[in-house]
């Protein structure tokens, strides 16, 4: 626990002043995040918003974090700052310094995420640290593949390193980066964007401190952490105490994976333990503990205390544990590139337990795992130099989300991830591909009183008829998103060629020259028995083509128009 008692009793006016400064601090990190999105190069950051940004006190406690697309960075980036200041003591930091890592276990879970942390000075005095993360377009190795067996296969590993000293970028680090990635310009550009956004944060923080006449964040930090922690405790106190168990089986790479969570409600915190979960995989779908912690905390917080801002006070209210060498606590040097395969599933596992504690408040299971099309071509991957124009592109897309207790599930919408998609026109401009179809997938939403969200179908072809590859990391192909309280499961996903051949849901595969890739994304689970669905809603779904007449009759017993 990391809170300190407030120094003196405060009057309400004083409290209001602290609230004003807190709001301001939140806007400082929002500005930091927006600057990063506006200057980033990779589609994941600039289109999808797969970034995070936050401000920390000198002990590494997070005081505020921007609300961005990536819950997976929520706690993990927060923890990374502790690793940085252990390696580079704060008293050694100078204005214009910045540090970098992509250590999956000390950063945000895989080598593609680069974290940059830098000190913030006000009137010459170190007052805070800013940190930010983004997912770069390439980091070398096998590419965006789950096929690696060890982290060494997965690309360039940057340990905690100084990146900039008093405003001068370490050109040696940059040269190593450029030499190890397939898209050196974009990756270097993203690193510049990371450094730059921390600079914006530092400037705005200094402005705020000058305006409010404070020379340290001690009192404000204590206020934020105390208030948030008290809010979490109050929210948790409303729940019954005890332990509830959740379980979900998912596809895995070569064998199904069982995810087990025991959620315990204590007086002042919630603990989640993953004992019983399958062991780590020999492929790159393992989740390091920091990433497991992030998605678990996110899922719990959505249900228990959605409106309390993230900071050290809220993070410490949810304790996550897992036995070592399970797939949710994979140790170095396990391969972790596609760690979101596991991470994105964890809120559903917790919801399975929470539904028993507070029925009627958690959604049905959804696609959960993002169905990003990670496409590429290059010598040795999809052919030889002569016939394979190299490219790497990630387009973010989603299947259906789970139905809510009182609302249908959102179609083609991510949960728990909060990223945005990449427009087809953008994808086609930066990569030699043509998307021939991108439409809702009829009948894919799980039947229920509230229908699960629909998945979508996409068809992709190489613009010049050349072969291209897909780094598949898809889930819910064998085990669908389950419904809740009588709701039916969503449709399974499917990956195939237009000519009919089925592809594997995991691993790099080549789409032969002239062939089209067909991606059918899963639907979300339904909520409540289908028979309880308002027949008018079923008829509307048939009229809109979301549900076929046949399915309306079979699943709901309703004759369509």
């Amino acid at each position, binding site marked *: 626990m990391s809170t300190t008692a407030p120094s003196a009793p405060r009057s309400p006016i004083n409290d209001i002043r602290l609230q004003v400064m807190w709001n301001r601090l939140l806007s400082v990190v929002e500005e930091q995040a927006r600057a990063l999105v506006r200057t980033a190069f990779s589609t994941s950051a600039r289109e999808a918003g797969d970034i995070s940004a936050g401000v920390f006190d000198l002990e590494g406690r997070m005081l505020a974090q921007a609300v961005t697309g990536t819950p997976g960075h929520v706690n993990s980036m927060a923890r990374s700052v502790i690793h940085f200041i252990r390696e580079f003591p704060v008293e050694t930091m100078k204005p214009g310094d910045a540090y970098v890592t992509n250590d999956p276990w000390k950063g945000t879970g895989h080598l593609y995420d680069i974290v940059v942390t830098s000190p913030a000075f006000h009137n010459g005095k170190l007052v805070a640290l800013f940190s930010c993360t983004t997912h770069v377009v390439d980091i070398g190795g096998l590419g965006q593949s789950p096929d690696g067996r060890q982290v060494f296969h997965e690309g360039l590993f940057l340990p905690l390193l100084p990146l900039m000293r008093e405003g001068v970028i370490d050109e040696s680090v940059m040269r190593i980066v450029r030499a190890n990635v397939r898209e050196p310009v974009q990756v270097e550009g993203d690193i510049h964007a990371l450094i730059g956004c921390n600079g*914006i944060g530092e400037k705005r923080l200094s402005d705020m401190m000058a305006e409010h006449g404070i020379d340290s964040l001690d009192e404000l930090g204590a206020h934020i952490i105390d208030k948030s922690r008290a809010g979490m405790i109050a929210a948790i106190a409303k729940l019954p105490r005890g332990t509830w168990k959740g379980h979900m089986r998912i596809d895995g790479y070569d064998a199904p994976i069982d995810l087990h969570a025991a959620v315990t409600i204590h007086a002042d915190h919630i603990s989640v333990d993953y004992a019983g979960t399958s062991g780590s995989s020999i492929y790159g779908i393992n989740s390091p503990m920091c990433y497991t912690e992030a998605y678990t905390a996110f899922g719990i917080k959505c249900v228990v205390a959605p409106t309390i801002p993230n900071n050290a006070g809220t993070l410490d209210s949810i304790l996550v544990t897992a036995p070592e060498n399970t797939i949710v606590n994979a140790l170095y040097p396990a391969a972790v590139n596609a760690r979101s395969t596991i991470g994105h599933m964890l809120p559903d596992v917790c919801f399975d337990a929470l539904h028993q504690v507070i029925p009627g408040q958690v959604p049905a299971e959804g696609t959960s795992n993002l169905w990003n099309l990670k496409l590429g071509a290059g010598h040795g991957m999809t052919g030889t130099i002569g016939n394979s124009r190299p490219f790497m592109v990630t387009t973010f897309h989603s299947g259906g989300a789970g139905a809510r207790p009182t609302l249908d599930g959102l179609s083609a919408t991510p949960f728990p991830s909060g990223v945005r998609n990449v427009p087809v026109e953008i994808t086609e401009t930066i990569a030699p591909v043509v998307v021939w179809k991108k439409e*809702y997938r009829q009948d894919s939403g799980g039947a229920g009183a509230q229908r699960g969200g629909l998945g979508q179908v996409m068809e992709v072809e190489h613009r010049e008829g050349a072969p291209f590859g897909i780094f598949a990391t898809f889930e819910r192909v064998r085990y669908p998103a389950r419904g809740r309280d009588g709701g039916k499961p969503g449709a399974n996903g499917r990956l195939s060629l237009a000519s009919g051949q089925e592809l594997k849901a995991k691993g790099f595969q080549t789409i032969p020259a002239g062939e089209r890739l067909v991606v059918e994304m899963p639907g979300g689970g339904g909520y409540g028995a289908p028979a309880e669905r308002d027949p008018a809603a079923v008829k509307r779904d048939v009229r*809109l083509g979301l549900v076929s007449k046949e399915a309306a009759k079979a699943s709901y017993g309703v004759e369509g128009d």
Partner: protein
Amino acid sequence: MSSRLAVDIGGTFTDVVLETGTKSHAIKVLTTPDAPERAVLEGVRSILAEAKCRPQDVSLVVHGTTLATNALIERKGARTALITTEGFRDSVEMAWEHRFEQYDIYMERPQPLVSRDLRFGIPERVASDGTVLLALDEAAVRRVAAQLKAEKIEAVAVCFLHSFTNEAHERRAGAILAEELPGVAVSLSCEVCPEIREYERTSTTIANAYVLPRMEGYLGQLETDLRAEGIAAPLLLMMSSGGITTVDTARRYPVRLVESGPAGGAILARAVAAENDARKAVAFDMGGTTAKLTLLDDLDLQRSRQFEVARAYRFVQGSGLPVRIPVIELVEIGAGGGSIARLDTLGRIQVGPDSAGSVPGPACYGRGGTEPTVTDADTALGRLDPTRFAGGAIPLHRDKAEAALQSLAGPLGTDAQGAAAGVAEIVDETMASAARVHAVENGKDTADRTLIAFGGAAPLHAARLARKLGMKRVIVPVGAGVGSAFGFLRASIAYEVVRTRHVRLDMFDAKMLNELFAAMRAEAEAVVRPAAPGETLVESRQAFMRYRGQGHEIAVPLPNQPFSADAAGDLRRRFEATYEQVFGRAIPKLEVEALTWTLSIGTDRPLPSPAKPVTKRAAPTPTSHRDVFDPASGLLERAALHERRLLESGMAFDGPALIVEDGTTTVVPNGFIAHINEVGQIVLEDRA
């Protein structure tokens, strides 16, 4: 003597302003939503009578209206269909495939204006470079047209992939629809919004089609009615860009009329900034339900091509319908006089975005409202004279305001006044935060600007807001209550044309770009010239540029002349200078590219010259004094009361003071000095 008429239709009131030489008249009548032209005519008749002006002496009518915006917000537009590339009819509903509110599992995305059963895919395909991959299936277009006829569709939006690069398929489909569906409004995305990103382009085109039939009908009726009144002057329309245009253009692209009221306010602020020689300013318009903030630099307004209508979820970005049109960049937040204050789960004060509206209104109106609002806080702080609100039309009940604030005071452990101070501080901080984030997104700072405050609630909060934003000066213009209509008369006749052409600087093609700009100039001139015969037109050009590989561009000003063959170097220098200004540091070595090009032309409307300095002199004895609680100091202070109409140029006095007029009250806090400038505006200066 010729007179100029401005009409601004708002949700509640229709404001009419008549200017003859240096004299002006202003009038407010209630809006008549079923036939908006009725209120306009009523207002016009009244103001002509009041000013003793003959209809034939009116030389210009400038009109702005929220009708298009309201049609979109209230979903009361035409029955509209979408025709798009086969396989993509759901793109407009999938939007960005995201949840704009991370933690709310009950979040809902806005529904598109066209439901799925009225969205049709047509076999055709153009690639990103404009190559036709699949020819347009004309028979399919005709089949869909027959269906649309059966469905009694009133408007059609056509949006094919990559049509901003190759318009042929959209134009051909449009021609077929015109043949098959005479009388149905057709909007093509290559005309309405020729820009990359299919969701935004489709959304904009649909919005245009959706409001087109109604706006066309209304504008035609208004034109006829004005003629019948004997007003032969041209009718011009205010656009969201701050420019004005002909009725013809407004009828074709009515989506460009959304938010024309706030645009008018921004134009007024620009004139006020000129009068006060404020090179850097912020326009601050705070009314009953929202506040709007706009940045002005070197007397120029921030402009953008991105806007969201009808944000349904706490004004959160992503919860509205995107329209890509030229707009005056403004940030709008749910903070107005009627905004409701409450405590969140952590016991923190939250203000807005929901508003008590005019019914029941704030608790202090005594019309049944019980929830505390910003106006209740202002009343409890002693800022408002209960007998003078809205010209005395609405008597305020301070006891009811205080009773409503008790719901906050109890849990906060304070009294009604403490709670009121908290509400005022939070709403001011909310606006300040929005302004700061908005500024940084544009690479600007808020400090050392002049705040120009108008709208009923702005002068009450302006001084505190200014201090939070590091601004030293606040101006409250004359007639602040009808600021937008005054702004219409100061706008120039202007039009902006946008084209997407991807150009790498290392493959710079001056000839292609010069041809492009010539075509853009011709298109813009065709719109502007008929409304401005014989006038000099001022041109400005911009490129939206980025490092190759980035996803977002910055607006880079270009010289108004054809490119020379070797202009790439100059373009790069201009880009890097702008980039450094916005983001702090340029990136060495990287390639630079431009995506979108804009050209706008407009008539040259000279700004007013700066007002002459005045010699400060003593103000008359205050009419009375009142105790006012100052949230900044936490003290109850004795404030002097001044009637604005009794104050003359040069008169000066220190805060704490209140300046009362019919439309609003200006709060002069302790530490500020107020004076009246040469042109009758109130100027507050921070002495700190």
